């Protein structure tokens, strides 16, 4: 396996704790290197909290949906005991994926040899295996992964060692408590693969600098660049407010707890590494991202709102959002091509209100991927 260049390692080590006044881009290798993506998968995506979806997708006992995180097929199921679990979706016999799609079921039956599991993961039946000495049905269980639910979002931690998530997000609470995102209903779940690095898509979603250019048609009259305002970041998150122009109509229904001020901006926040959410006055768009390769990202996108008009088909309800995303898709392809150039140099990022979130994420990545021994103290650098 090719290693990561000394240049990138040093670039990351050097930016730790640098203030926003010194914000610059990182070398393109950060986005283009397959080796670096493998490192991210091992050191970040396996070790941190990754969003899989929303509690609102599985309201009743027996409800489940399936997804994949890195190479792990997963079932997210509400058991008969009403508990939400994230289970490995791989048969304990010969590794077949057990169930696909979503639905409601008390049992999961493997289509290969009919090994049958309860929806809490316990093996119930394994035909003919009573003939095998030492084999016990009771001794077999689908692995259950560590889960945490925060404001209705379901997070999983693959290696089981992450510290609890909620305490690390305390600084975000004031921005969300009146909006109650957990009360929103699911309007549409879209699973897509985009041909871009996961960080390019996350950064794009989380910076206001591009709103007035890339989205000059869809968003200029609603959330222009000039009205963006960053919030203070935390250890595990960052965010910004995209204020509405005075003329833009009030979207409804909004939560009755929201203050008049809160009704006039969208709250964008980023739970590291890769859960980005935009909450408007009447709904939300959550992008749960994970890398497939350096140039490929899987995006599980969930659109929600306080009220869902079931009479309108999902595509019609979400048309505006998808138009905006299409504009981003075109732009991200241009970035993918540009990042392949050998002549890219590191340059200052835009002002904090407009691209400060990108700098915050860089700092997070630098902290996660730079061993403590490689970090230089600020005192030494000053001398």
């Amino acid at each position, binding site marked *: 396996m090719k290693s990561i260049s000394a240049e990138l390692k040093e670039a990351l080590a050097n930016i730790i704790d640098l203030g926003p006044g010194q914000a610059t881009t990182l070398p393109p290798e950060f986005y283009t290197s397959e080796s670096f993506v493998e490192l991210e998968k091992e050191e970040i995506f396996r070790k941190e909290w990754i969003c899989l979806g929303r509690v609102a997708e599985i309201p009743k006992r027996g409800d489940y949906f399936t997804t994949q995180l890195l190479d792990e097929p997963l079932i997210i199921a509400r058991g008969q005991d009403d508990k939400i679990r994230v289970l490995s979706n791989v048969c304990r016999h010969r590794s077949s994926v057990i169930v696909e799609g979503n639905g409601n079921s008390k049992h999961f039956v493997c289509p290969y040899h009919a090994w049958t599991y309860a929806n809490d993961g316990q093996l119930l039946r394994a035909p003919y295996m009573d003939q095998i000495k030492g084999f016990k049905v009771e001794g077999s269980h689908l692995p259950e992964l560590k889960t945490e639910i925060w404001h209705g979002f379901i997070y999983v931690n693959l290696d089981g060692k992450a510290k609890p998530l909620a305490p690390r997000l305390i600084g975000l609470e004031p921005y969300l408590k009146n909006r109650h995102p957990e009360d929103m209903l699911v309007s549409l779940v879209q699973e897509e693969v985009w041909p871009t690095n996961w960080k390019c898509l996350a950064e794009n979603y989380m910076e206001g600098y*591009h709103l007035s*250019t890339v989205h000059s048609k869809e968003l200029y009259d609603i959330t222009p660049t000039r009205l963006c305002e960053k919030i203070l970041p935390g250890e595990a998150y960052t965010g910004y407010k995209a204020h509405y122009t005075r003329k833009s109509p009030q979207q409804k229904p909004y939560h009755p707890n929201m203050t008049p001020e809160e009704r006039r901006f969208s709250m964008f926040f980023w739970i590291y590494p890769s859960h980005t959410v935009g909450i408007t006055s009447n709904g939300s768009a959550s992008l749960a991202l994970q890398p497939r390769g350096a140039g490929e990202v899987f995006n599980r996108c969930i659109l929600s709102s306080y009220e869902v008009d079931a009479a309108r088909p999902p595509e019609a309800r979400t048309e505006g959002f998808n138009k905006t995303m299409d504009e981003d898709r075109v732009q991200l392809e*241009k970035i993918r091509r540009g990042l*392949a150039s050998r*002549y890219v140099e590191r340059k200052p990022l*835009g*002002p904090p209100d407009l691209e400060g979130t990108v700098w915050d994420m860089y700092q997070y990545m630098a902290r996660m991927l730079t061993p403590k021994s490689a970090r230089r103290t600020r005192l030494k650098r000053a001398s």
Partner: protein
Amino acid sequence: MRGSDEIQSIRLALGELENRNSGQAVTLPPDCYTSEAFLELEREEIFRKEWICLGRVEEVPKAGDYFTTELIDEPLIVVRGRDDEVRVLSNVCRHRSSVIAVGGGNAKNFVCPYHAWTYGTDGQLLRAPYMDKVAEFDVTKCRLPEFATEIWQGFIYVNLDGRAKPLAPRLKSLEPLIKNYHMGEMAHQFREEQAWDTNWKCLVENFMEGYHLSFTHYETLHDVTPTRLCKKYPGGKGFTGYESHYPPKWPPRTPHHPDLTDKEQRYTMMFCVYPSHVVALTPDLINYMCMRPLGAEEVHATWGLATFDPKPKRKTVSDLHGWIADVMVEDKARLQSVRRGLKSRSVAGSPLAPPDFEGTIWDINCYLAEKLSLKTVTKSRVKRAS
């Protein structure tokens, strides 16, 4: 590491070619066509360091005219500036690496679609919204990198690393053979970008050898340029080529420059400007391709046509396009087949056909060996050291 061992052994095998003369002409070691590691070497040592053709100057006749293209992952803009200079600029925004311009046209400035950073047609950054709020950011100190360019016979060549020696002197001995055609006066008709499933060298060789004309192109080319009438001429430091003569029955090709001799009117002048610009120059037109590798088994092929007639009828151009496209279909099938064959373990070096038919391939092989081989003297040095 496996990659470098692989390259080492291929380069050594290439070095053996340098011990042969043209009477002992053989094919390249098959790994030269299939190894991704060797392809990386070619990208760096050849495509970054040599002169690569991007198109023709008459594609950008007026100030502000531009087209965009890509060379070994470098997005490029080819543009005629307000000062009438034709430049090749990096097409990557200095902010966050978005590609700036797409397609072609005429522009006063290039505006990045991401955050509206604006550059002049000479590459100078003119405007960067909100960046005045960023300490120490100075718009005047920022410009798009410009690459070394040379124009020869109306073709635009670029050299990415900026260190290549001038191109024209290396093509000096070709000049007398093509001067009567007045290529610089021909008019661009179209340029297409294609991807072919083959190694770049296979396509260059295919274009440059007459051996296959009467078999692969029995339906399309045998009546105009049959294999038996091909005749090689001596190559030079920067090129190789052959004359592909017409049978007596083939009608004259017009219009053409009056300087052309009677003899020159009866053949197509084929030449390759190393590494990968191949040209079929007839009395009335230039049909050219320039190859740039995408992978060991995939090549980006630029295909262009220019005519001596400055304003040919639309049907004439369309007929030419159709005819050449038919020829390409026949070649594509052959080359896809060669791509599969080259992966076989049973492939061994084969003698090439006589010089008139495959001598150009030998010249190309010698050029590559000179650029990329590990010389046998190096090999013996290693032995001595151990």
